[in-house]
């Protein structure tokens, strides 16, 4: 299984609901393309809901970071929502917990963009 990505708006925050696996190949490519398209379309407040992400490898983490940088370079921000314990562990081991703001409550996450 690859990754399934759907987007929705909550006010001026774009929520990307991701499900599946973000790994080298189709999953990571789809993820990269979606974030880049959103950034190019002027979406500056991105909230990535990773509740249904069962697996992410270093390529997937790389795309998370690249997306963060791409959006930041355009004056925007990417935040993370609903990390599973395994994804949390990966972000801690890679020290990316110090880079991303992480939430487990969508309403609070959306509010934080204001």
């Amino acid at each position, binding site marked *: 299984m690859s990754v399934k990505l759907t987007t929705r708006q909550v006010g001026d925050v774009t929520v990307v609901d991701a499900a599946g696996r973000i790994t080298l*190949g189709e999953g990571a490519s789809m993820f990269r393309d979606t974030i880049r398209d959103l950034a190019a379309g002027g979406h500056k407040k991105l909230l990535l809901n990773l509740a249904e992400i069962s697996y992410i490898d270093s390529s997937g983490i790389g795309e998370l*970071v690249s997306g963060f940088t791409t959006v930041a370079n355009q004056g925007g921000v990417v935040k993370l929502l609903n990390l599973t314990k395994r994804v949390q562990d990966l972000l801690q081991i890679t*020290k990316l917990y110090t880079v991303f703001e992480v939430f487990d409550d969508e309403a609070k996450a959306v509010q934080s963009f204001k």
Partner: protein
Amino acid sequence: MEEHTLEKVLESTLESVDTAEHTVLDEAQALGFDEDELHRVGIALRECMVNAVVHGNRYNAKKKVHLKVVRTPQSLTVVIGDEGDGFDPTAVPDPLVGENLLRGSGRGVMLMQAFMDEFQISRREPQGTEVKMVKYKAKAT
């Protein structure tokens, strides 16, 4: 249960990464690792295979990836060899330091070292790189 050894020669494709993952996780499951340990072994294995396919063999159809898995009652040993030009692990920037945190790649070796109990890179003869990783079964307390 004594020692069980599996060896496979795989193509330099992303499909081989999946094949190797299934093979190794079957052995890890037979050893009795729990779900979290299986996940960590799986990640380490995928990172190693991706390095062999993408960076070692560069998807070259003429180059193979050599997988060996040895299962004992206490441990799982995975050896992955590519037929590339060789690899200097000291040349990999530390992904945890400074601006390297925001690099889009370069975390694979670090994850393998973090998730396996032993990790060793050596030159593969006659050509390529060989990575050996070992995961020990935790003793019951």
